[in-house]
């Protein structure tokens, strides 16, 4: 069974932008694959034919007409300003990049759920329901079977204050002990912080092994004014909190904010971005048109103020630039910088300005700005670091790296890995990796997300350690410190089964003369179905030459058994509960049994475009799906909404090649006991659920071991 290169690689091959290493491999594949040869030929033809398309010529009287119009005094305003950077994108990049490292946290939080322990029908009530910040609040919690039997419970929260700029993760705290009142009721009283804008809550038992997160929706409180309106800061913080876990509710909150605070520029800006994001590129034009009058009114209001605040001016810059009113944006930016040159918003704008000039002097300009403004805006060290990463000297990278990590500890990982990638800075990078490892050795309880149990958090921390150890091991290998590298990679391998780590470890063992262990480690690489075919091939080719074939065969068999044991250690064994019908794109209803009949392994993937972690995995899911289908697995992907052009657009944007179904009545979700998204299930040929996951890393291995179970004779070892 051949695995074909991805379209992207064939395209790179066709236009010669492919790396030498890949090129050689691809050439070999193309020699024996007519299908891919055809694709490459078509791509080349496409490129050359496209270039030949003539544009015909302008009509001969065009100049005449131009001069006539000009002479008549006609004025046309051309878009000469290089477009202001889509600043919000950058803001989001900073935020998401920060959250993403912690997204290794957040999505991992959603990742490792203990299957059976889910609370249905629990209730939590606050009084007052619309508190003012600093107020005393009473909470009454009615437990479901999950927590009903506990002697006492803990209320945990994530507090967001108005000043929180969502750089870096927000800590969790234990807020109150919930006292048992009998009959499944628990109560507590606590005081909200004076500066609170928004808070979300979850309930758990004292041991932290059973958590009720209200089905991951959590419970919430928004700070209100004494008159009973939600404060705008509260709504803004709510939007920020929801962005990374439930984008649909985030959008609804933006709308609520806009209707409650129509005069506030912040709600106008959020609404614009929300509308744009919902409409997509096709609808941009009409969104801008529809927002025009609100924009003009807002602009006038601000122009009328004798002293707009720097925050207001900054918001107007973003607003105007997204409304494509580049002249106004430039005006307000210039005024903001002139009147408040060292305000964080101004410094952020000055950072963007620095980025709009000639690329050559960019880092120099940022340095000048840093000398003047220092750490006042997180944008500056972030942009400086990203630029230095791309084309800065080692000195520059280190300098900006230090500034960035001082500003935002969530960036430490990224700084460490960037430094480690440069030979002269490797030492600095390794120091940081070790520092991170130490901090993971004593993880802080406030980093445990509200939806996670203690065990899930520990598992997540372990995985992070494994990744760090792998990185550190690679760096040590590159430094030539074989002994330390060996030790480190061994620890990494013990934590999780990881093909590249095994490969490095095997190489090191061989180099240090530990042949026996090298063989068994190489065997692990060869036995791992998720090793890239290239890696597996090269390992096999090499070992065939150097090891005794029978011994090698035995080693691979043994490794295979080890892998199976590891994989099955995570296995469950649950039935599919009842029948389910889901809806296909044409509107036809299909039964799940029909799509995934017994006799073959099946992979079911629940995804939602409103769930950012799920959306982020779409590309990977698509690739994996193709791989699985090629192995004879039935792949069924299911989403939570009906087919609309917007859904189609999302699928197109993510290189999605699958039919996907709509779980219209939630039947399939209930049948498999889906909890949230992303949620992936692997079913054996018997039709029973054997694995469930929140990420895709293990799926190939799981599928492989299941397929072997049903056809043991077919498992061949070379």
């Amino acid at each position, binding site marked *: 069974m051949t695995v074909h290169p991805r*379209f*992207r690689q064939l*395209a790179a091959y066709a236009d010669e932008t492919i790396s030498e290493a890949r090129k050689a491999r691809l050439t070999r594949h193309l020699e024996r694959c007519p299908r891919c040869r055809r*694709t490459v030929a*078509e*791509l080349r*033809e*496409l*490129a050359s*034919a*496209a*270039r*030949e*398309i*003539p*544009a*015909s*010529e*302008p*009509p001969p009287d*065009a*100049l005449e*007409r*131009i*001069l006539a*119009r*000009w*002479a008549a*005094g*006609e*004025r*046309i*305003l*051309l*878009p*000469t*300003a*290089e*477009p*202001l*950077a*889509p600043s919000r*994108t950058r803001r989001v990049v900073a935020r998401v990049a920060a959250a993403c490292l912690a997204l290794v946290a957040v999505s991992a939080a959603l990742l490792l759920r203990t299957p059976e322990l889910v609370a249905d029908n629990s209730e939590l009530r606050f009084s007052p329901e619309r508190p003012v910040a600093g107020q005393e609040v009473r909470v009454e919690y009615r437990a479901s079977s999950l927590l009903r039997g506990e002697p006492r419970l803990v209320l945990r929260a994530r507090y967001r204050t108005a000043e929180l700029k969502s750089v870096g993760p927000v800590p969790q705290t234990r807020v109150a002990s919930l006292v048992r009142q009998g009959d499944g009721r628990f109560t507590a009283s606590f005081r909200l912080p004076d500066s609170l804008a928004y808070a979300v809550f979850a309930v758990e038992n004292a041991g932290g092994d059973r958590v009720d997160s209200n089905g991951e929706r959590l419970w919430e409180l928004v700070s209100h004014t004494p008159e009973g309106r939600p404060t705008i800061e509260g709504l803004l913080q709510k939007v920020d909190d929801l962005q990374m876990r439930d984008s649909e509710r985030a959008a609804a909150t933006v709308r609520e904010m806009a209707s409650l605070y129509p005069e506030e520029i912040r709600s106008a800006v959020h609404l614009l971005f929300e509308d744009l994001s919902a409409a997509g*590129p*096709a609808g*941009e*034009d*009409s969104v801008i048109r529809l927002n025009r009058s609100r924009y003009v009114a807002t602009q006038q209001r601000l122009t009328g103020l004798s002293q707009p605040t720097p925050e207001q001016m900054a918001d107007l810059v973003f607003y105007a630039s997204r409304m*494509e009113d580049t002249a106004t944006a430039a005006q307000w930016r210039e005024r903001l910088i002139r009147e408040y040159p060292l305000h964080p918003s101004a410094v952020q704008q000055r950072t963007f300005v620095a980025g709009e000039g*000639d*690329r050559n002097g960019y880092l120099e300009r940022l340095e000048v700005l840093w000398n003047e403004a220092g750490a006042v805006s997180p944008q500056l060290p972030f942009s400086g670091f990203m630029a230095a990463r791309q084309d800065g000297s080692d000195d520059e990278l280190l300098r900006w790296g230090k500034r960035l990590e001082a500003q935002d500890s969530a960036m430490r990982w990224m700084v460490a890995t960037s430094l480690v990638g440069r030979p002269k800075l490797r030492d600095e990078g390794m120091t940081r990796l070790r520092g991170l490892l130490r901090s993971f050795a004593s993880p802080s309880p406030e980093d445990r997300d509200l939806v996670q149990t203690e065990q899930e958090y520990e598992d997540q921390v372990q995985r992070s350690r494994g990744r760090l150890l792998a990185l550190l091991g690679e760096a040590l290998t590159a430094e030539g410190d074989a002994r330390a590298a060996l030790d480190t990679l061994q620890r990494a391998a013990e934590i999780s089964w990881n093909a590249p780590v095994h490969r490095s470890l095997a190489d090191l063992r061989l180099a240090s003369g530990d042949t026996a262990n090298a063989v068994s480690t190489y065997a692990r690489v060869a036995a791992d179905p998720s090793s890239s075919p290239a890696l597996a091939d090269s390992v096999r080719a090499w070992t065939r030459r150097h090891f005794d074939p029978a011994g090698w065969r035995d080693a691979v068999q043994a490794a295979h058994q080890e892998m199976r044991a590891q994989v099955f250690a995570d296995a469950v064994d649950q039935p599919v509960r009842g029948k389910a019908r889901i809806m296909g794109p044409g509107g036809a209803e299909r039964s799940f049994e029909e799509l995934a009949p017994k006799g073959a392994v099946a992979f079911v993937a629940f995804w939602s475009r409103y769930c950012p972690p799920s959306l982020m995995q779409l590309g990977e899911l698509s690739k994996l799906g193709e791989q699985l289908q090629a192995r004879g697995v039935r792949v069924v992907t299911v989403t939570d909404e009906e087919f609309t052009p917007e859904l189609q657009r999302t699928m*197109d*944007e993510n*290189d999605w090649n699958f039919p996907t179904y709509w779980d219209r009545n939630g039947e399939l979700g209930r049948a498999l006991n889906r909890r949230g998204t992303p949620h992936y299930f692997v079913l054996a040929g018997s039709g029973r659920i054997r694995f469930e996951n929140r990420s895709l890393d293990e799926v190939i291995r799981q599928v492989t071991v299941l397929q072997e179970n049903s056809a043991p004779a077919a498992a061949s070892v070379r």
Partner: protein
Amino acid sequence: MPLSVTHPPPTAPLAERAAAGTAEAIAELYAMHGEVVYRLAYRLTGSAADAEDVLQDVFVGLPEALRSYGGRGSLEGWIRRVAARTALMRLRRKGRRREVPLNSLPESAGGMDPSRVVERMAIERALGELPDGLRTVFVLREMEGHSHAEIAGILGIRPGTSEVRLHRAKKILQTKLRSER
């Protein structure tokens, strides 16, 4: 008439003269850059009528616009970017209903293999059916030869986004063209 400034001497750079607003300078600019602007506009908008409008707008507006030029980079590059943005603004205003030109036969197929001509028409049609965002990047990269960094500057997107869109465009085109064979 735009300016009350004395005309710069004929030996002054073209950009300066054109900014001052003389018919001769405009004509000279047109002679040098007119075709390039038209071709770019045509490729981006897919319609001769739109391309003509863009061509007109760009050159009528050029004298005033040139005041922002400032001499950075080549004049042609600057004009092309302005033209690209103008064409794109026009596209956005027109909305999704694109006319795929039926009379897209080249002025003279003279000497060209007819099957090649048909092939090109197929590609043109397929290009016309691409979503604007994807087609724009494809045109700017594959046909106009811009780098992803330049495209990022023109469109106000990130270079990574430009790369992604290019790949998607190629994939869609390839699929479409294959199905027509």
